[in-house]
């Protein structure tokens, strides 16, 4: 069962195609990363998912039905461009934004206070937002996004401009919410975070989805089939092995490409069986970063 299905979304601005037939699915209980370069169409896609922009084409399906106001009440949204009412007091801001989502009462107030405490700004609850530092204002914004206990969390570039401590706090919250069974969708151009946090991703470039699926599968798919080998002995038997695609001799080392990434273990076994002395055997798993560079660095159009 998918929590959210994005089908064929397109959006033009003044004839420029910002998002071009984007389709992907977000499974229940997943942390979903929408990754891509700056200007790739991440924010536009997210705004369409939030029903802030009406798509030119396509639709967003929430558990079988098209999204509407009901969805807005279930979402906690952290936009890329942060902003709050500068003259409003911290606690008032939080309660106001929660009320817009239909949550009022003592419980919300208590919860707001707990979050403020956790973020170490409880003593500022009656300060005006403009008196807070930028980092603290960002904290307020995170709290506003999660305070009404939404089923979906949509964060647009949540890590942009954050110091390491706040980054960790935010990561903690994301993982905590995941443990509670919430669906978390975030966009980022920082591959490290996407790789560490998400279990499903979609990669967008020039408005098109160029890669999507579970992170594990994608990595397996893109795992390098190249093994760097430094060994002593006769390696001619490798040419005869069925799973080896190509052997290149670089002098000091050899580059071996197997047909499937999983066959690197067989390669190692074969080397040992043939009494080759192995000094270095490097079959590194590929990082999302490398996949991103490989795909987005080239000219798009590479779809799974």
């Amino acid at each position, binding site marked *: 069962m998918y929590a959210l299905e994005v089908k064929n979304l397109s959006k033009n601005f003044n004839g420029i195609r910002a998002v071009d037939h984007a389709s992907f699915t977000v499974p229940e209980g997943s942390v979903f990363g929408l990754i891509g370069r700056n200007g790739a169409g991440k924010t536009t896609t997210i705004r369409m998912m939030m029903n802030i922009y009406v798509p030119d084409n396509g639709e967003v399906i929430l558990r079988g039905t098209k999204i509407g106001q009901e969805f807005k009440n279930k979402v906690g949204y952290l936009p890329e461009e942060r*902003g709050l009412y500068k003259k409003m007091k911290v606690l008032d801001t939080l309660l106001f934004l929660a009320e817009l989502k239909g949550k009022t009462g003592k419980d919300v107030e208590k919860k707001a206070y707990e979050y403020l405490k956790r973020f170490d700004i409880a003593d500022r609850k009656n300060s005006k937002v403009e008196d807070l530092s930028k980092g603290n204002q960002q904290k307020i914004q995170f709290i506003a996004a999660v305070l009404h206990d939404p089923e979906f969390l949509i964060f647009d570039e949540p890590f942009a401009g954050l110091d390491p401590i706040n980054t960790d706090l935010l990561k903690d919250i994301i993982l905590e919410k995941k443990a509670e069974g919430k669906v978390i969708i975030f966009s980022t151009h920082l591959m490290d975070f996407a790789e560490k946090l998400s279990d499903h991703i979609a990669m967008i470039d020039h408005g098109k989805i160029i890669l999507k699926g579970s992170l594990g599968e994608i990595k397996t798919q893109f795992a390098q089939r190249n093994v760097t080998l430094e060994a002593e002995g006769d390696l001619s038997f490798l040419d005869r092995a069925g799973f080896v695609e190509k052997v290149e001799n670089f002098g000091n080392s050899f580059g071996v490409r197997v047909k499937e990434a999983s066959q690197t273990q067989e390669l190692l076994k074969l080397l040992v069986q043939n009494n080759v002395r192995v000094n270095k055997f490097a079959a590194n798993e590929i990082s999302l970063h490398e996949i991103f560079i490989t795909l987005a660095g080239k000219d798009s159009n590479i779809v799974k």
Partner: protein
Amino acid sequence: MTLLIPLFMFGILGLQTFLIQYTDVENAFLVVASESQKVLDNVQDELSRMPKNQDGNIEFMFDKLEKQKLEQRLSNIRTQILEEKITGLIYISDQALKNKKVEYYSKNPNNNVLLNKIKPSINKVLTDMFFVGRQLSTEELEFAKNNVDFNGFRISADKEIVEEGIGNTILSFLFTFLLYMSLLFTGQMTMTSVIEEKSNKIVEVLLSSVSSRELMTGKIIGTSITGLAQMAIWISPLIILISTTWFVLPPEFTLKLSMWHLLFFLYNYFIALITFLGLFATVGSIFDNPQDAQSGIWPIMMLIIIPFFIAIGMQTNPENQIARFTSFFPFASLIVMPARITLVDIPLAHLILSIIINIATMVLIFILAGKIYRVGILITGKKPKWSEVVKWFKYNY
């Protein structure tokens, strides 16, 4: 722009002068009545020497009438006065020969333009008759220096004939100023708040909870209700004044004002707020800083300022053509009509027509404003061109 500003300023000044001086006497038909045949003859003689004017022809009918029969006569011609077949009745009693007090009965007793044309003739007659065969004392000289004094009596659909004080003129000024000031003030405030939400980016957070139309509607309705409450408080002294006998006004300030007038004024203010706040909010959504917004705001200011001048200029004659026309013109009606209704009786059908026009304008503005607003509030960065804004109407946001 630098060169346009002075042109614009002169244009405004010229327009203001024109509107305040603009007065037209359409063809008027006046009944001149007096107890004395001699007065009538002299007045007739004097009036016949009045230069024929290009902007309107005044016709007279002369009528010898005892003071006791005046009321009878007035009730006979009431319908004709209300239908404007007879512009008014001037009654010169014998008393006028001593104090120059002349009574004027009309639907529009404040028509100074018309009265100022006849005053000299009547004044001359009264002065001449007073001085025939007399030595002059100081008192007499004083009399001679006095111009004739017209006391206006309003003929309205009510049976009563009320002496017209300057109370309603003051009230009409007051209403016009209140409307003008509060529309501009509330409008600017709404625009600033939209610009702030847009420029400090909170609008996207709000849009994750509500739609842009809800956001705009909420803002406008909310501000309008606050504005309405504020206005109700401001005019509450008037409510107390007309509904209680706690305060007694000197006769020259007597108000002809009913609760319906005040209710109409408040209703009209509410519609005006929604209409103009819609425009102000739209301008706010187009620009992301107050400096840029100034260039977008002046067309809206004109929609308030020009009717304001018309309403002020109308005080000398609330039945002039510009006033009549603009009280049915979208936007202008909202400011001119409340002032006019304070000065003269407006037929119910006209009132209903203006209400329909105003509500239609409001709905139209709301729809158009919504279309620009939803696009505008999410666009930041460079100042958009007007041609781009027009394209926003077609956007599928």
